[in-house]
């Protein structure tokens, strides 16, 4: 690890066990000690806020999608309105009680787990307020699942612009951390779609903000990892709904596939693009279009330049490779079995008709939960500039190979907006990225039981690559927060920490997530 930049110990208030040259351990936060809880609970109830303290209420939030961080809140508040959240935060400030905000709970590093204190369940605020067909925007409460938003928009023939390919991501969660879709290479991350927000600050003020109104707060709210406010409502851009035309290209080289992905993105050659792999043995570049015109233009100009093959062409090329390496037969069998599972799932006729995929999130998310999901998930990632991406993917892949027999990589680009640079500071968008940022998730298949140490060491090795090459991470909070300072440097972290202390005097809001 001699390439890791040197670091001065002693200045860092976070994750001391993640510093250079010290053996890294899991940084699961200590549980808050519960001081003043009863006084707080009484004051909160006096303020008219319902606080649930039963095991049935608290137990439901004991972990997140990762299933490796466990913490029990002292109580749960189901979000109902900005006013109620305001009352909660004001009371929590007075009594120094931590409040952890949870959307869909799809974090993997315990970012949405309350290690004591209050768990604020934002899904209670999940109603669409209005659709403005002229402005092409929707105003919605932010605990809403993107999929529920899609259900409502679709009744009027509309769709959101981009959202994570997971049915239970929430709007608020994505605005806080980014949110990446396979159309992000064209449309940017989900957080970039927000036009205006209603937020509640850590001291309980309810504030409207946008690029023109309270712009500084807007900049900190978007991609702010919940440090500077709770996002209660958002106005988001929408568009007309279209089913999409999918094309799949198969590669046996990660590098070639990534280069082709970037070729497409650079030239705006497709509406959707991304890479999904079975180890590095079957690398699938998916390309899709909203219209016949775009598809035709792609076929005419770009298709021939792609070096991937169709399903049959790929299989024919793979056969001799495995025939000459009989010791790799188990891998070939695994690929075959996986193909038999996955391919029908991505082509289910009730979701894909006449070559048109009706709803990409339904198809991908159902497949992901069915064939990738498990009670424990670790999905470390690296987010880099265009130039560093191939290197990051190849190095991360080598780490996956070392730790797991079976895994998946998911790569996608994010179009960056020049005017959103202030939002990107200290986020998953790496500081040196221009034009696009690229992210790769490294997801081991949990087809056997792994110890927590094994999983943690794997994550550390992936994240070390990020530090080494100067990258950022999509999941950089929670148990991996020690890396923020290592990857992004003291100056930016200290600046944000100072802003956080000013905005949140008692550091009550999502205190274990970043700082």
């Amino acid at each position, binding site marked *: 690890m001699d390439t890791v930049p040197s670091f001065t110990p002693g200045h860092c208030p976070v994750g001391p066990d993640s510093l250079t040259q010290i053996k890294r351990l899991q940084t699961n936060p200590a549980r808050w000690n519960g001081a003043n809880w009863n006084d707080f609970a009484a004051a909160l109830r006096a303020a008219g806020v319902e606080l649930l303290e039963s095991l*049935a209420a608290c137990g*439901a939030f004991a972990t997140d*999608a990762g299933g490796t961080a466990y913490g029990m809140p002292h109580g749960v508040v189901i979000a109902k309105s900005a006013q109620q959240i305001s009352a909660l935060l004001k009371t929590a400030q007075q009594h120094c009680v931590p409040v952890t905000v949870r959307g869909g709970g799809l974090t993997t590093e315990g970012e949405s787990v309350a290690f004591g204190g209050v768990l604020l369940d934002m*899904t209670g605020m999940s109603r669409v307020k209005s659709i403005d067909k002229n402005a092409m925007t929707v105003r919605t409460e932010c605990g809403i*699942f993107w999929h529920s938003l899609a259900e409502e928009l679709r009744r*009027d023939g509309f769709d959101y612009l981009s959202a994570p390919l997971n049915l239970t991501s929430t709007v608020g969660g994505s605005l806080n951390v980014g949110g990446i879709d396979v159309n992000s290479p064209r449309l940017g991350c989900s957080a970039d779609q927000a036009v205006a927000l209603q937020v509640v600050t850590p001291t309980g003020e309810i504030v409207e903000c946008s690029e023109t109104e309270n712009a500084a707060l807007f900049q900190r709210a978007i991609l702010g990892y919940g440090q500077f406010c709770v996002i209660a409502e958002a106005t988001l851009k929408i568009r007309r709904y279209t089913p999409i035309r999918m094309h799949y290209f198969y590669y046996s080289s990660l590098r070639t596939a990534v280069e082709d992905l970037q070729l497409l993105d650079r030239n705006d050659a497709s509406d959707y693009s991304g890479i999904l792999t079975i180890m590095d043995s079957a690398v699938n570049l998916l390309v899709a279009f909203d219209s016949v015109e775009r598809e035709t233009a792609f076929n005419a100009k770009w298709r021939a330049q792609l070096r991937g093959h169709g399903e049959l062409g790929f299989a024919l090329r793979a056969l001799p490779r495995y025939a000459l390496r009989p010791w790799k037969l188990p891998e070939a069998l695994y690929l075959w079995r996986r193909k038999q599972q996955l391919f029908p799932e991505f082509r289910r006729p*009730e979701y894909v008709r006449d070559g048109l995929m009706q709803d990409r999130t339904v198809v991908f998310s159902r497949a992901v939960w069915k064939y990738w999901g498990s*009670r424990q998930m670790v999905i470390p990632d690296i987010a880099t500039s265009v130039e560093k991406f191939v290197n990051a993917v190849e190095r991360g892949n080598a780490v996956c190979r070392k730790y797991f027999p079976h895994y998946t990589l998911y790569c996608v680009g994010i179009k960056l907006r020049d005017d959103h640079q202030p939002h990107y500071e200290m986020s998953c968008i790496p500081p040196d990225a221009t034009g696009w940022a690229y992210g790769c998730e490294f997801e081991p298949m949990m087809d056997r039981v792994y110890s927590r140490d094994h999983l943690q060491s794997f994550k550390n090795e992936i994240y070390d690559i990020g530090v080494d090459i100067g990258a950022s991470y999509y999941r950089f909070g929670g148990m991996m927060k020690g890396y923020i300072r290592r990857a992004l440097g003291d100056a930016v972290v200290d600046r944000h920490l100072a802003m956080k202390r000013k905005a949140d005097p008692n550091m009550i809001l999502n205190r274990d997530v970043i700082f």
Partner: protein
Amino acid sequence: MPALAAHSRSGFAACSGCSLCLLVCPVWRKTRDLRYTPHGRAKALQHGVPVAELKNSVESCTLCGACEPACPEIIDLVGMVLSLRRQLTAPAAVTMNDTNGKTANYAGQRVLLATPALRETVVALERTAKLLDCVVAEDNGADIALALEAGTPIANARRERFLTPLFSAKKIIAGDGLLARQLKDWLPLIEITSPGIALSKCSELRRHLRSDDLYVIEPRAFHANYDELVLYYDDLRHATGCAMNLDLQRIAIPATARNLRQRLGVEAEDNAAQTRWLLQGRKIARIVVEDAGDIAAFRQVVDMPVVHLAELANE
């Protein structure tokens, strides 16, 4: 809790907390409170919460079954609620049919077990029987269906009196999806279907479906046999051009949201929000229902023709 395990495809212990069940659950839509969802119940049980503390949640479930095809862990979520209800005291007693009438004989016949709502919709009942070439059973097992729903015991004598005439039936068309589910266990050798599915296969009815119809699938029967039926209904939708009460996952949106207390008549029904959600944004001129029990709910919130599927035969 062995009773749960016995009914499980997977048991509550398999719940990963993914929340996918919330997306389709009418009770979640109404309450936005995790405690009233499969996710909330499974997690509570995982943490050792006593069943008695889950009473309100367990009673809130409408048993529409929408959560089952949504659950990636393939948990027997309807079975879980039924099992929990059996461990709790029902909010009201179910009056069982104890009359000792003449024993019918349905040997070799198709038998329709009509729901009380279908029985009241006389024209639809007659046409259903005619179109499906079946006899309408005198004993429709409505009390048994309600007892199953409430988790109250069913005396062996009553069960036998209900089942004996059905043993030799050729086919049973059961209007109540929960009863149909149980009949598959009790009479594994007999073909059991629902009136909606059987009627929707009649070409005489299909040709009357229009592109400005909203076709409302009965959710219990559909979700209980989702893997087989999802494509069937999707094909029907494409063939006729009508809209259906399917969401983007192709899971049925129930037209009503009757919880146990409402089914037992101890609480007033309150379906308007659910029915309105189903109708929201749809450009339709007529509603065609598989379940006669949905007719009243639609008529309360919308001013357009609402007909039972069998009634289309008249046109």
